[in-house]
């Protein structure tokens, strides 16, 4: 593995040096062993700014091999700047094949979405995480949040949900919706819409979460229960739309609302571009 990539002799395979990758792999192993627990790691400077996916990119660099196929999505789309640059980065420094098709990929790095196409055994989903600590907005002290995790003292999280119902009549949190992993640790699922939370539960794919600025890695191993927090009389619910996708007609995917002209015309389209294009192609083929 230590040889330089063919395209660019200046860098080690997958950009990071071998010792760093070993360190990150150790953190990943620990994270997988303790689902939902945030493992600190020595985050490195990456050639992109914090907030653009430095955590996810380090995790991907540590796990990617020559025969992997990489897919990168940003808000569900394969063609946004962030997704394109990260995909090109790994094509260059690791020489891996890239794809936009969810079922062809072995490693999927994502920001803000879980693909609509169901994942399968052997796939790895790498999340970019801005704020790994789910209790951060409720308890500013890092020493205290670690204690709360250690003692599984999660009353304060429930207090925030109570407060949301008291103020808005329902749990208004729509993204980064807190989950309980394997009945033990409360985890931030990164800013995915709560629509995607059910996909995390007992997923056949391995989920890895990397936070570059805060230097934390956590994981959900395949088939691990992931429960979205709620109240008995206010159960967890996902978003629903009255429309269906204007392009592919899907009624069960996550829709983005777009304003298409100056008179306020609105359009709802799938946020997962791969899913949407494949459905359109299938519809055309059927005609």
């Amino acid at each position, binding site marked *: 593995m230590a040889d330089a990539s063919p395209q660019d002799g200046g860098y080690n395979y997958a950009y990071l040096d071998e010792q760093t990758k070993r360190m990150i792999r150790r953190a990943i192993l620990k994270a997988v062993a303790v689902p939902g627990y945030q493992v600190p790691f020595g985050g490195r400077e990456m050639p992109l700014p914090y907030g653009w996916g430095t955590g996810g990119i380090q995790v991907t660099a540590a796990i990617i091999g020559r025969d992997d196929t990489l897919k990168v999505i940003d808000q569900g789309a394969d063609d946004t700047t962030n997704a394109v640059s990260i995909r090109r980065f790994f094509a260059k420094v690791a020489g891996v094949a890239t794809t936009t098709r969810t079922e062809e990929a072995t490693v999927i790095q994502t920001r803000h979405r879980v693909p609509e196409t169901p994942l399968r055994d052997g796939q790895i989903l790498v999340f970019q995480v801005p704020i790994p600590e789910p209790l951060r907005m409720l308890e500013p002290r890092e020493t205290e949040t670690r*204690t709360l995790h*250690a*003692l599984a*003292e*999660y*009353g*304060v999280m*429930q*207090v*925030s949900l*109570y*407060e949301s*119902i*008291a*103020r808005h009549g329902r749990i208004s949190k729509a993204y980064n919706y807190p989950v309980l992993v394997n009945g033990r640790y409360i985890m931030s699922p990164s800013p995915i819409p709560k629509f995607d939370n059910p996909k995390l539960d007992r997923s056949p794919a391995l989920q890895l979460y990397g936070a570059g600025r805060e230097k934390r890695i956590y994981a959900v191993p395949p088939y691990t229960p992931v429960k979205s927090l*709620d*109240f*008995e*009389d*206010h159960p967890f619910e996902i978003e629903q739309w009255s429309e269906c996708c204007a392009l592919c007609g899907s009624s069960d995917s996550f829709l983005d609302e777009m304003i298409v002209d100056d008179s306020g015309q609105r359009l709802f389209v799938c946020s997962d571009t791969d899913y949407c294009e494949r459905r359109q192609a299938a519809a055309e083929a059927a005609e």
Partner: protein
Amino acid sequence: MSPLLSARGITRYFGDRIACRDVDFDLWPGEVLGVVGESGSGKTTLLNCLAGRLAPDAGAVTYDSMAYGPVEVHALSEARRRLLSRTEWGFVSQDPREGLRMGVSAGANIGERLMAVGARHYGDIRHTALDWLERVEIARDRLDDRPSAYSGGMRQRLQIARNLVSSPRLVFMDEPTGGLDVSVQARILDLLRGLVNTLHLSAVLVTHDLGVARLLTHRLMVMQGGAVVEHGLTDQVLDDPRHAYTQMLVASILPV
């Protein structure tokens, strides 16, 4: 009957300075113990040592727990101590901002302890919170207001409700009426006296106000320079003070 809380030789230094020294006492079930003394006499340090918030440099605190039997507070694991302090104990601070979550509504403040021990039914939690709001004489329609919209006296009453909702057996109070005006003080004292009687609470009450001590406490400890200088029934200590310092304290109450 065994004492609910007993302290033996509690000593705490801050660097070279002695904050409290060799404090011994027993607190019996249903009893309210007052700790009086001037500022800096070690009252609050003693209270923090008793409540497990501060480790004493010497001495031991034994609490007769409902769940585990007699336990030494500072030898318990942190997990158990924290569990104890949010189920069997309460702690009312002088500054309600320390004891309350100022960013969430009164209902959430009262419900926090319930949710911490596993309550997951919104309607039930809210119902209990309303009930407690009434018991501490706050209007029902203030349930969804944040404590920052409350007056000082209401915040203090909310803090009391938040602590008592889990039906603790022992409540630590640090100057619960400090910083409030006299009429509000009187209402809170009335309320506390009523609650202590109806709920059969035991309490350790730290105050510098001898009037508060007279009204609420059964027994009194007088502290000076970190040591207990006099200890006895409240009426006895206040009517017939023996130690020169206590005599000075009693004599310095302003006549109205």
